[in-house]
């Protein structure tokens, strides 16, 4: 028991106490901390704009998770079929984004996507585009940047569960007459689902809460929960409302994460949960 006390103390001081404070603050009716009530929550749920911000944010997490999932499987299949040297190279490339700071990675995307950025310059000088396209400060640009940045969180668990898949299972399926596509859909996909779900949860939570990338690549015109909370707390100085926003957002993300975890445990048969 004793060795965990420092960690428990840190957890208490840095997470539990602020969370309690957040709950307390959210229960005040005015920014001046007058009158206890559920007014802030009523305000959120009766305001279509706020609800739209929440659903947009959750949708962003879903889109990025889907995009990384679609990219991770081909990558994992190539990895599994590769030799040792190629595997080391792929692992390095996958890990690379994790080895640089979020700010650096995000600015790299700004350099790529900007009006005078690398992509626009290249396309214009090749004559493929007539005018510079608007890539930065768009939803698609933000999804693209987040997908690249979060890909390791999906690729690693998917690769891990693919490597644990018994090669005889795919051989057996092939021997029974299944095409490559059928083997993938009926054997590989269901049996690596725990890895995909683990990756999905990580990417979903990370993308939905990625304040820096959302703000810098998405720009000021796309309002999502992290920047909404920041704006209410720092800009408007409405602490009770931003505390309520924080709690609603936290509960929404963790609620979805737990729900998917529970569903997968119930419906994924015959596979060890990751």
């Amino acid at each position, binding site marked *: 028991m004793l060795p965990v006390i420092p960690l428990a103390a840190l957890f208490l001081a840095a997470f539990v106490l602020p969370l309690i404070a957040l709950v307390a603050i959210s229960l005040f009716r005015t920014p001046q901390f007058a009158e206890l009530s559920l007014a802030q929550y009523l305000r959120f749920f009766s305001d279509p704009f706020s609800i739209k911000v929440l659903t947009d944010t959750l949708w962003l997490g879903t889109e990025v998770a889907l995009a990384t999932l679609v990219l991770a499987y081909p990558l994992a299949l190539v990895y599994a079929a590769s030799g040792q040297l190629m595997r080391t190279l792929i692992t390095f490339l996958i890990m690379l984004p994790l080895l640089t700071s979020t700010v650096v990675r995000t600015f790299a995307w700004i350099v790529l996507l900007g009006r005078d950025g690398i992509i626009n310059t290249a396309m214009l000088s090749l004559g493929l585009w007539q005018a510079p396209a608007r890539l930065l400060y768009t939803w698609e640009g933000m999804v693209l940047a987040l997908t690249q940045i979060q890909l390791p969180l999906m690729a690693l668990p998917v690769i891990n569960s693919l490597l644990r898949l018994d090669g*005889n*299972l795919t051989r057996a399926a092939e021997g029974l007459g299944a095409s490559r596509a059928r083997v993938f859909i009926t054997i590989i996909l269901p049996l690596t689902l725990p890895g995909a779900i683990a990756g999905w949860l990580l990417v979903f939570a990370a993308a939905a809460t990625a304040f820096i990338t959302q703000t810098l690549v998405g720009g000021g015109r796309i309002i999502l929960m992290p920047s909404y909370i920041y704006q209410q707390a720092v800009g408007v100085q409405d602490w009770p409302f931003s505390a309520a926003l924080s709690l609603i957002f936290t509960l929404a993300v963790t609620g979805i994460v737990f729900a998917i975890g529970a569903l997968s445990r119930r419906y994924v048969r015959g596979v060890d949960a990751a």
Partner: protein
Amino acid sequence: MEQALSDVRGLSLDLKDIGHAFGATVALDRIDLTVAAGELIALLGPSGCGKTTMLQIIAGFLRPSRGEVRFDGARVEHIPANRRRIGMVFQNYALFPHLTVFENVAYGLRARKTAKDVIAAKVEQMLGLAQMASFARRLPGELSGGQQQRVALARALAIDPGLVLLDEPFSALDKNLRLDMQIEIKSLLKTFGVTSIIVTHDQEEALSMADRIVVLNKGRIEQIDSPDALYDRPASLFISSFIGHTNLLRGTVTDTDRVQLDAGPEIDLGRSAQRRRGTPVTISVRPENITFDAERPGAIPVTIRATVPLGAVSVTEGVTATGEAVKVSQARASGLAKVQAGDMAWLAISDVSRVSIFSTPVDDVSKHQQRSV
């Protein structure tokens, strides 16, 4: 029912001059094998002998570096595994863990886009034959090893294969169950009339299952023969010690039909040794072909090391003056010689015609190391 099943005819298999290398490592070399339709063949050999490579080539998971694979006379090297109509049973059964027993057996039929009612009837029939009908809704993880194996075989046979390949199918079963499953599966394969190839490193498995055994060693075929012929007339020193237990005794040819054993006596082979005088030879004598004898010229003197009762037989091991170990197997029913560890005893060969004679490998002669099996 059996009448209808035996209409399913196995295909004939021909391997012609198959060779395969992984980089610089030669896995298979000059493999020629003909398997008749409906025959049950065992590929037997120690690990690394190339038997798994051979199985993968036949299955279509591996394309041989050279040579021809023919099914019913037609070449198939270019046909991928999923279009060869081969039933495979894997060492770990490779049942799909997320699918029920029914879905596992139906898998191959669904992949072939068979009609639903046909699938249901076929799966029911296969599970009935495998005595697994009441387990259709279970997941593989809920079955015992023997039950999983039955399902694996039902799944392989459900696609009406012309050829069934079984890769070490009994090694995951405990010993008591093994013989029962061997008998059951042999009869099931024979009922189907399907051509079958079992890959194994277990000689007992090969002897009990196969019509003919192909012994592989270091990527080459050492001998292809019936189980009895392999046991009684092994073609090489390797086979004589790989199939069953044997005693290897060194000696030198002294006359057309005589061998002077290093261990003492000169023995009369009763036939030509087919080697020149002075050739170093190793003779192979099965433990059941040796008896205790009185002290006399021609008997082999040994010091008894231990006696091990093995149920129906009792095995006694002695050591010759040259350090060669000799095992004597006696049937318990015929009364046992009373010997104890440390005793001197004299051994004789009961039937000289069942002794095999091989030239001693050159590197062994130079080292002149003792061998025991």
